[in-house]
């Protein structure tokens, strides 16, 4: 997985200083967050549906072997082909083989997180295949050469003026900053791409094992276009994105639509179970499903994190997270952003490599409330932090900082030894006299404590502790 999570702090600082991004994020969270919460409150089945939905997902994940073999069997019966890819490399190779075997020159894609994770676009383009993202947001960032910054609204960080300039430069259309006109420009450019494409690539929101279908959800209709018009359809699914029954599928699909875009149901939902039959007048002549592990089986094996495989990637947690609301999506350094990214990115891409992500979150619990399945993200963030601090050979985690550990041991010692504590206070009071101050606050501590004052001022130590004052008062009275 391609990660730029190491630049977390630097990217976060940049994002916080960007007024355009800040207002976009505030707008997004102000609209979607509360709207989703209202829909949860008015569920016809009552709030219990969310608990049930978690149970459905958990059952599927706990029996993933049966789920996947049932799905594969049913799709094959319907004439589709199913491929299993243990690694990202395998998944990409399978797709390249299908492309080569079908003489594919042009590809249209519906938005898919897992293909972002696999780095599929680059691999296809390296083979000389033209790849067009077709979700409007994804198309914009593909033209701009950027990365998605929100699971559902990938181009939320771009203004209409920026998009106007981008389109007039890349598409040769007259400059405008009018969203309907810009949308029409993209509609026109992409319509041609849909018609010409040999292969359509989609993700899979949630498969249904008993019927043998994957589902795709969109509001633009781009995924229906990508999976109806080209002669070959290749769908990628993370191996955990499955549920047993149609009735369970229905409940989760509705909750996902609420979490993703505050809708009762997405505008276009397609159940796809295979290629077009010989007597069907349209639809792809070949259908391939690529089921991807790429690190998920390791999460499955760990009781602490298995819950994360129930996630349906709706992005509801992004719309309420106070950290995401400030640092934006790019800071997370992978396709998965926000609270979900802070847990899944380290688990898929390396806990040390993406260590800053879980430490950046506040553990406020807003994500858990917003999650349609009420996944306990704060618990998993804490578990990741614990691995970073203690190390874990099972996850190849090295303890993040020996110094930090030493420091906390020292802190522990000072606080459990009264005399040492008093002496440290006395020394501290002397040292702080020469520290830089502003408005009675310390603005800069010396190394190794300088990190603490990097983004906040600190109150100086009081001249006397409470205990000392108490003692004096008592003595004064007696």
């Amino acid at each position, binding site marked *: 997985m391609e990660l730029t999570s190491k630049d977390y702090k630097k990217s976060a600082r940049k994002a916080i200083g960007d007024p355009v991004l800040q207002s976009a994020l505030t*707008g*997004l969270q102000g*609209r979607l967050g509360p709207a989703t919460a209202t829909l949860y409150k008015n569920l016809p089945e009552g709030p219990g549906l969310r608990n049930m939905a978690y149970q459905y997902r958990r*059952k599927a994940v*706990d*029996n993933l*072997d049966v789920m996947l*073999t*049932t799905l594969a069997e049913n799709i094959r019966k319907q004439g589709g082909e199913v491929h*299993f*890819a*243990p690694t990202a490399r*395998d998944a990409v190779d399978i797709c390249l083989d299908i492309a080569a075997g079908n003489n594919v020159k042009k590809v249209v894609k519906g938005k898919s997180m897992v293909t972002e994770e696999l780095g599929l676009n680059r691999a296809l383009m390296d083979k000389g295949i033209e790849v067009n993202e*077709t979700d*409007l*947001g994804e198309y*914009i960032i593909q033209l701009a050469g950027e990365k998605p910054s929100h699971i559902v*609204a*990938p181009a*939320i960080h*771009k203004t*209409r003026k920026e*998009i106007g300039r981008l389109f007039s430069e890349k598409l040769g259309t007259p400059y405008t900053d009018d*969203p309907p006109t810009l*949308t029409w420009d*993209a*509609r026109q450019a992409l*319509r041609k791409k849909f018609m010409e494409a040999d292969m359509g690539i989609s993700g899979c929101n949630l498969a249904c*094992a*008993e*019927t043998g*279908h994957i589902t795709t959800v969109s*509001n*633009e*209709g781009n995924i*229906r276009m990508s999976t*109806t*018009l080209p002669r070959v359809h290749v769908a990628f699914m993370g*191996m955990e994105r499955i549920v047993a029954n149609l*009735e369970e*599928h*229905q409940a989760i699909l*509705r909750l996902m639509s609420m979490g993703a875009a505050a809708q009762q*149901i997405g*505008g276009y939902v*397609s*159940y*796809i*179970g295979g290629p*077009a*039959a010989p*007597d*069907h*007048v*349209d*639809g792809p002549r070949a259908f391939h499903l690529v089921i991807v*592990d790429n690190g998920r*089986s*390791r999460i499955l*094996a760990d009781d602490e994190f298995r819950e994360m495989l129930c996630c349906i990637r709706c992005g509801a947690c992004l719309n309420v997270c106070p950290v995401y609301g400030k640092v934006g999506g790019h800071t997370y350094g992978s396709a998965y952003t926000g609270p979900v990214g802070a847990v899944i990115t380290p688990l898929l891409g390396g806990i040390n490599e993406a260590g800053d992500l879980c430490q950046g979150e506040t553990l406020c619990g807003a994500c858990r409330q917003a999650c349609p399945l009420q996944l306990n993200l704060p618990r998993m963030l804490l578990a990741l932090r614990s691995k970073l601090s203690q190390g874990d050979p099972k996850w190849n985690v090295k303890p993040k900082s020996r110094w930090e550990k030493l420091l906390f041991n020292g802190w522990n010692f000072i606080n459990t030894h009264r005399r040492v504590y008093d002496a440290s206070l006395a020394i501290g009071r002397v040292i702080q006299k020469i520290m830089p101050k502003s408005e009675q606050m310390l603005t800069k501590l010396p190394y190794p404590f300088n990190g603490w004052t990097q983004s906040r001022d600190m109150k100086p130590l009081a001249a006397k502790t409470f205990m000392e004052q108490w003692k004096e008062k008592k003595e004064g009275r007696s």
Partner: protein
Amino acid sequence: MDMEKEFIKTIQTALNRPETKVPDDLFTTTPSPEEVTLLEKIRTRTDPERQPLIEVLRRVVPGLHMDLHVEESIQDVARGIEKLILEKKPEWGTKKSVVCWDHPLIKELKLTDLPNLKGIDVYTTSMAADSPRRREEIRKEVQDSFIGITSADYCVAATATLAMKTRPGHARSVSLVPSIHVAVVRQVDILADLRELYTLLKWDEKERKEGLTNNLSLVSGPSKTGDIELVMVHGAHGPRELHLFVIP
């Protein structure tokens, strides 16, 4: 195949099989008592009982940017569609043509008999036998048409959702590629909510036998996007307008 075996084996190891057993009730094989009741309710629903559902539809469609036309007869629908064909402008060129599903209800419209529509091509997505040439022809006709006319298996009132299975003659692209999608449904095919739809799809004998088909599309409103500064725009890639005609 080896890769597949390996893949499933890795999962089984992670799940600690065979120590952890596969539960017996992973997949449902009989409907719950509530589902049986619901099925009965749908089957025995009378026309007067369906009127409130049409009122629900009326309330829901404006929010989804859909147009609802409740008509008395198929002739009224034909006149309504004729009006759309005459009034609306084609998006991609100047020529007006229309494409229809090969479907009994849509055939009843007899659009080609309407004198005002003389000179306007009305295509039907019918194919006698597996023919790549005919398929290519249909593709071009769909692409050229500015209005696509379909029916639907069901229409869900609470969410204004059209459920369309794929069958010969029912081209998927007719509800997708033309700028305006017109759907004609009978009142008997209106359901109250998604739960009713899924209960039918799952347990109704006829539905079970047919399965979901290779492609079941649920469509709630025309194509839309909010990807530029969250401004809602209709007609991102699919149809810009969706007109739903309901007849007794």
